[in-house]
């Protein structure tokens, strides 16, 4: 146990409560509708793919859902050759 945790002993339940609230708020919202972040992810990648050739392997997606906001990071490595090829179309 970390020293800080020691002084906050018995303090793990509030952490559990907070984590669950964030998670369940998200899951309840998404139960009967498409996952907004998933929709964004797909549409963003589709738009980029229209202009440059992207290899699925070069797309890195990370997410962090927070209580009030979430972050979606889409990291795409675009080969320079890909830009030229698409621009020629």
């Amino acid at each position: 146990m970390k020293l800080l945790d020691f002084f906050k002993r018995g303090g793990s339940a509030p952490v559990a409560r907070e984590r669950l609230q964030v998670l369940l708020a998200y899951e309840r919202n998404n139960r009967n509708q498409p996952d907004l972040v998933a929709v964004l992810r797909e549409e963003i990648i589709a738009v980029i793919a229209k202009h440059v050739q992207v290899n699925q392997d070069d797309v890195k997606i990370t997410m962090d859902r927070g209580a009030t906001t979430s972050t979606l990071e889409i990291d795409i490595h675009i080969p320079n050759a890909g830009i030229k090829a698409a621009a020629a179309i």
Partner: protein
Amino acid sequence: MGKVVVVTSGKGGVGKTTSTAALGAVLAQSGKKVVLIDFDVGLRNLDLVMGAERRVVFDLVNVTQGQAKLAQALIRDKRVESLFLLPASQTRDKDALTEEGVAGVINALRDKFDYVLCDSPAGIERGAQLAMRFADEAVIVTNPEVSSVRDSDRIIGLLDSKTLKAEKGERVTKHVLVTRYDAGRAARGEMLSIDDVLEILSVPLLGIIPESQGVLRASNVGSPVTLNEPTNAAARAYADAAKRLEGEDVPMVTPVEKKGLLNRLLGRRVA
């Protein structure tokens, strides 16, 4: 080539998910590359126990159905570099996983990792059978209690007949991990003893994990007990079990009841 280990039990609530997280984390901490796969489709929980629930983008079903690349679905642990999680899907479709799909994922992971730990769903149906299908080894999580031991026995039967290894005439290496062991109740003869469990199942013992409040605290904060409180009795027992899984010869310690003075006066147990 890595080892594929299924963590299974038949019965629910015995400690499979807790054990997958705890064993995986110590193995990774000792330098192994480890991936944990949650096979509990529809009821995923390993992400919560690992504290990765906010970071799930893709899941096992997405990968088997080609909606995501394996590398995109793996979540790297924030505490241990070489530890990864492949989350289960929340879909209600029980048949979302196919044997071919799972074979593809496991074969790809086996090439890149030292350990592929498969957290099985409860039961003896399709989901549990898929989780064990490609295993080289099995950790059979058992509580010292009649219904758990009986279910473990049925799981052993499946490991010996329904796995790929069994069908090829080979054997899945089996280990029993006794969890939620309550030394006080064992001393009072209220619980099956370790010897009883081993004699009935006749599978070698991987470890004895005591019942401990530390396990609950760890799951509250989303960290495997072996990382959250490494000196906790359950964490130490998991660390020893991980060494045995690695082939090390670590003496087995049967947990004994520890009573502080105050607790002794109050007649309470401590963990």
